[in-house]
């Protein structure tokens, strides 16, 4: 029986409390003496009054209405929803990390600085870059930081006419959006029939106004850009730089490195590749690494080591400045560092190996029932295109809902844009063969039902706590907060 869940604001009772504070033990002054009346709040806070048990039950019930990696298979393409090791959570919660103030003296935070320093060494080796900043709070934030660094490099050289950034048609939406944020113009580069960036089109697009090419490799089609060295040469010869979007780094660890492919700047999504949880949308962390000629422009401060002491270096006169108030999402970096240290070189390579095996294996199972464009070896993800199913009355969005009914989180739907009815599927290395087999059986069943009676799939989901939600209505008549009737 489906039923809406009461909102916080519809619960509780006046006079109830869910907290305990010590009494104020300093001599009290009258409020008006400390704060003139006109500066004081006029209206009630309008918040619910709940006991602690009501709060706990409310959120516990909400949690049962939510699906995470711990609930089941989560092949959301380009999001790398791998298992989040529990020990990461434990170490990040240590008071020696969680209870540090960003302004405390460096000598009292040597362990934190050492962790940042160690992490930087590991990320440099993993990617083949010269230096890293941990300041960006997410992938898109890393992209913006990276473009700012590139911009500062060109500006510093007096190269002020480079106002365009090339972005392949298969790029994540954050890439073009970041280009705009950095004040650049987007030039879109098409894909060729193999799914690669069209090299001829790239040559056409590149000129003296090119600031950079942003590239995800492997792409969102899960395909490795085989002509990467030619692409790098074309862009570099025109005076542009290469930006690596690390969203798909999970496919290539230990096999190749962005630095060796010719990239000048890279961001990593350590909440994807290095196992930290996605938190219902965040926090993430998007460290940015650069080649030597770009290091002067990185955000301040950088972490340095002198003797056995670690310190923040603010003495970087060409630096772009800051992108976050302090030093980035330290708590997330702690988790990723723990993971990295546990996996080691061999483990990380095995991660990529298994991610690629899982992806190619699942694709091989699904292509018996669905069209999968670009018939070649894939990396960590692939895109299913249920065009025939859509014609019968149930497309990518409907198949996604049918997967919910079968206990799976669906792939990313309707992306990348160049594939009709896209289901971008990323089964990562933490899934077993049995899980992939079960998912393939569910997909097969869905295909069979669509053949027989597409409406049954198009009217789903049937087993979820709510039925299909009306997104059009939500957008046309936005209700963005609760209000007292």
């Amino acid at each position, binding site marked *: 029986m489906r039923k809406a869940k009461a909102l916080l604001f519809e619960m509780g009772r006046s006079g109830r409390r869910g907290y305990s504070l010590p009494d*104020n033990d300093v001599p009290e002054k009258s409020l008006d003496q400390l704060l003139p009346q006109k500066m004081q709040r006029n209206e009630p806070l309008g918040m619910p009054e709940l006991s602690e048990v009501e709060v706990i039950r409310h959120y516990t019930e909400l949690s049962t209405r939510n699906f995470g990696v711990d609930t089941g298979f989560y092949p959301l393409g380009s999001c790398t929803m791998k298992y989040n090791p529990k020990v990461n959570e434990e170490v990040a919660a240590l008071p020696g990390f969680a209870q540090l103030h960003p302004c405390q003296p460096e000598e009292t935070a040597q362990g934190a600085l050492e962790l940042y320093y160690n992490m930087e060494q590991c990320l440099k080796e993993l990617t083949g870059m010269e230096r890293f900043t941990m300041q960006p709070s997410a992938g898109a934030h890393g992209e913006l930081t990276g473009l700012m660094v590139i911009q500062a490099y060109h500006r510093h050289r007096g190269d002020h006419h480079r106002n365009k950034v090339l972005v392949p048609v298969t790029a994540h939406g954050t890439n073009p959006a970041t280009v705009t944020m950095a004040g650049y113009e987007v030039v879109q580069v098409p894909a060729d029939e193999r799914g690669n960036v069209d090299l001829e089109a790239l040559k056409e697009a590149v000129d003296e106004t090119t600031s950079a090419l942003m590239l995800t490799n492997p792409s969102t089609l899960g395909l490795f850009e085989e002509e990467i060295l030619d692409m790098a040469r074309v862009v570099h010869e025109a005076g542009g730089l290469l930006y690596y979007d690390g969203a798909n780094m999970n496919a290539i660890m230990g096999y190749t490195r962005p630095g060796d492919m010719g990239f000048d700047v890279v961001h990593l999504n350590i909440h994807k590749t290095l196992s930290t949880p996605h938190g219902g949308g965040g926090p993430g962390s998007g460290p940015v690494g650069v080649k030597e000629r770009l290091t002067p422009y990185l955000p301040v401060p950088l972490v340095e080591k002198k003797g056995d002491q670690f310190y923040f270096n603010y003495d970087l006169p060409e630096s772009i400045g800051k992108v976050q108030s302090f030093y980035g999402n330290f708590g*997330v970096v702690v988790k990723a560092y723990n993971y990295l240290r546990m996996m080691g070189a061999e483990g990380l390579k095995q991660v990529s190996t298994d991610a690629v095996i899982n992806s190619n294996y699942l694709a091989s199972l699904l292509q018996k029932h669905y069209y999968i464009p670009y018939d070649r*070896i894939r990396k960590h993800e692939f895109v299913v295109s249920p065009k025939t199913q859509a014609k019968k009355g149930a497309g990518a969005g409907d198949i996604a809902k049918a997967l919910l009914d079968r206990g799976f989180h669906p792939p990313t739907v309707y992306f990348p844009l160049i594939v009709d009815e896209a289901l971008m599927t990323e089964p990562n290395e933490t899934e077993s063969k049995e899980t992939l087999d079960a998912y393939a059986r569910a997909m097969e069943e869905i295909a069979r039902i669509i053949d027989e009676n597409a409406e049954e799939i198009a009217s789903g989901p049937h087993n979820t706590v709510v039925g299909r*939600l009306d997104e059009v209505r939500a957008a046309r008549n936005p209700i963005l907060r609760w209000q007292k009737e």
Partner: protein
Amino acid sequence: MGGKHYLPLTDEDRREMLSAIGVDTIEDLFSDIPREVRLQRELDLPPSLSETEAVKHLSSLAAKNKNLNDNISFMGAGVYDHFIPSVIKHITGRSEFYTSYTPYQAEISQGILQAIFEYQTLICQLTGMDVANASMYDGGTAVAEGAIMGCGATRRSRALVSRSVSPFYRAVLSNYFNSRGLELEEIPLKDGHTDFASLEKMVDESVASVILQTPNFFGLVEEMDGVADVVHKHKAVLVVSADPLSLPLLQSPGDYGADIVVGEGQSLGVPPSFGGPLLGIMAARSRFVRQLPGRIAGETVDSEGNRGYVLTLQTREQHIRREKASSNICSNEALVALAAAVYMASMGPQGMREVSEQCLQKAAYAREKLTALDGFESVFPGYNFKEFAVKVPGSPEDLNSKLLKKNIYGGVDITPFYPELENTMLFAVTEKRTREEIDTLVRELEGWK
């Protein structure tokens, strides 16, 4: 190898799967990577650790830090040592929440969607705004994006920011503006507050956003009377950064005419974590809803007419709008927003009010006691919320090292950000500080120079 237990494939699995794929070796799966870019060696990383060894290593790093649990802290400057109810970690620790991602599939994400919807409502109640988003990265990026929203809404490219706004936020703001080719000017200080006369002179038809902070960086409550009128006279947008924990006590930004309210939400039950993850608050009047960056949860109904929640107004966002999006933000700080919502739900109106009153009272007590010491001077007149600036008779660094020996973290040295303020420190006093702790601080500084 340490992390083997995260990888379920056995050698036999791999063999079977390779054969199903139709290749002979693992190497075949990587044959699309050109030989020239292949790494011809193993990665050179430190040896892998077992779980026990990893915990030991991480614990030893943590032990090299002096944390706030074992020391009395008077540091603030945007990140504070507030009481965190125990319920929060139990809720944010539920893995259905923390191992999920952005709720694209609403029917199996009602938990986080409703929690975000409730968070948005709580932020609106606090700030007096009509809409709030699901979070920004931190206070600094929220300030920057709020200022840029003003530019988008007015189609102007210039902003004014008060020097009383946190220098940490201004650093982020000026970087964002510089990159985008937008112009930024600083409004000077007068006695630690925004100089209203200068503001009045500087704002004109070319100004998109005016950015103020209250309580400002010095902990002073800004005089907001008439500010909105001056800003709106020139059709500019008033962006206010506020500590949400001051709002149970202070006039709400909606009440004095702010258009966009941003801020750092760390004070709402979030550990300081060396400055991240934090929580960027972003709220606005409904007329700015199309310019809002990031995720927004909205109410709708399901196929049976039941109330439910979805991500909405997504045509503002990067995954739909690409280069025309209002921002590039994708991942945000959703789990931190959840923590803040649980905090507010637990504290309720009474608890919220009590915390902010205790901050006010205790800071006032500490300020009075400290500035009664020989050589310690109150720097600015005015009304402080939970922080205040004090000129000390010597170097702040020396003062802090002396205190540190007694396990006290003194104030934040703010002279580097305001060179005109010699030997000036910012002391923060939250509801967690007891009278005894404050008296200890004062006693330790008696006679110091």
